[in-house]
């Protein structure tokens, strides 16, 4: 499994917030949903847009791409709606007292 890398401080991502970071040069979006932190590929697979700027549904744990509305699961990166036809990458998340760490799940 790939190494965990610290990508942000915990204070930078309070509950309800999102953040764009990088892992080995790849864009990753961090999402704090009701205290749980999720990390998925940050670029929509349909057209270029950053998912962390999209609408997050706390109940369904999904994010809608701000450009055309394609919906992705924050838990596993699966696409739930068109116009996206591919999933985004998903990352494991670890949190310590200060930092948020991520590593690709695949």
């Amino acid at each position, binding site marked *: 499994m790939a190494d965990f890398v610290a990508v942000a401080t915990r204070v930078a991502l309070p509950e309800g917030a999102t953040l764009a970071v990088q892992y080995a040069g790849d864009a990753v979006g961090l999402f704090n949903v009701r205290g749980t932190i999720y990390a998925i590929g940050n670029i929509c697979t349909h057209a270029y847009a950053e998912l962390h700027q999209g609408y997050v549904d706390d109940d369904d744990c999904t994010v809608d791409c*701000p450009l*055309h509305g394609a919906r992705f699961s924050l838990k596993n990166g699966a696409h739930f709606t*068109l*116009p996206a036809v591919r999933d985004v990458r998903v990352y494991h998340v670890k949190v310590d007292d200060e930092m948020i760490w991520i590593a690709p799940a695949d």
Partner: protein
Amino acid sequence: MSVDANDLAFDYSKYGFRQEENYVFKSGKGLSEAVVRELSAMKGEPEWMLKRRLQALDIFNKKPTPVDGAWGNPDLLDLNYEDIHYFVRAGDKPATDWDAVPEEIKNTFERLGIPEAERKFLAGVGAQYESEVVYHSLREEWSKLGVIFLDTDTALKEQPEMFKQYFGTVIPSADNKYAALNTAVWSGGSFVYVPKGVHVDIPLQAYFRINAENMGQFERTLIIIDEGASAHYIEGCTAPVYSTNSLHSAVVEIIVKKGGKFRYTTIQNWANNIFNLVTKRAVAYEDASMEWVDGNIGSRLTMKYPSVYLMGRGARGEVLSVAYAGKGQHQDAGAKMVHNAPDTTSVITNKSVSKGGGKTTYRGLVKVHPGATGAKINVNCDALILDDKSKSDTIPYIEVEESKVTLAHEATVGRIGEEQLFYLMSRGISEAEALSMIVLGFMEPFTRELPMEYAVELNRLIQLEMEGSVG
């Protein structure tokens, strides 16, 4: 010999009549959160739908009007969103018996021939007047087989789980500005579910009528064809002519599951003051087949690109469309095919005729994703320009990211040849008849796919449009 299109007023008497406005409710002009909340409350909707509407309103307000760019159109600048009534309720609830429909509305649909068509050759009928459906019925033989054919408002109440599962999954609110607008203020439309293995072998039809001036009609249609099932749905649209603009902005979402077959036929004959901005998209899974048969006559501006997302091996999509643009009209129509699985097939056939200063545009997209090996695509666009004042543009986008693909694109633009006319006239046919005959022949690949009654009607409409084309 001279062939000159003139500005003959189209005989719109069958469609152009208007009824007195006698409504249960009519919202004020303009769009606001209050209008959306009021609409949702009047319909007694669940909280999640109100939330979805408000989110869509926010998206609509933030998205710029697409006047330029790949899919933009500067004609949209003439559309004033503040001058439109977004919700007009004409009756109390959909009737299942024509006798229960308010008299004036019933008269409208009788003049349009809908009850007669239902008796003769339809499995079910929905009739929408302004914002809501006033009549809806399905023959008992089909309901016994588990077929569901409801107006969309009723479906939200009676089929809440299936509705929530599929609503907005094919066309999200943020897909484009007009999909967001529709999601914010949608009302009426059809909901169809055909269970596994059921073949509805005679058509279901919905008819959409705008009567009021400065009216916005935003029907929402959701169709689910389950595994191995098949159906054919027909929609017709008309409105009277007013001096100010009205807006029709529908969203149609279709899901065709494994081995299913579905055809969606549109015969649209809007008055020349209607902005017709429609998003239609289908998703076809393994070995499924989806066909859009799309006839566009009338409207001030139509922007419509029916799409099929081919998501399973062996899926097939087809768009067969015609557009006729007369004076002051722009038919900006096309198709989108997205291949995302191996051995998928798509066919786009687009035919357009422009006359008297009208403009037609074919705008289309073919996208092949990596891994869609063996995809076969055939795109064919033919434009006929009848005079020097008229225009036609062809804007095909093709994005192929897979090497093992067969793609053919063919486009022709032309005028009616003098020798064709001469040949027909030498057989004793008048110039006007000859011209009409050539145009109908040009459209024939489309009309032959329609049920007989619709083909006759469409030919008659085109003949009426063509009258006086000889100077």
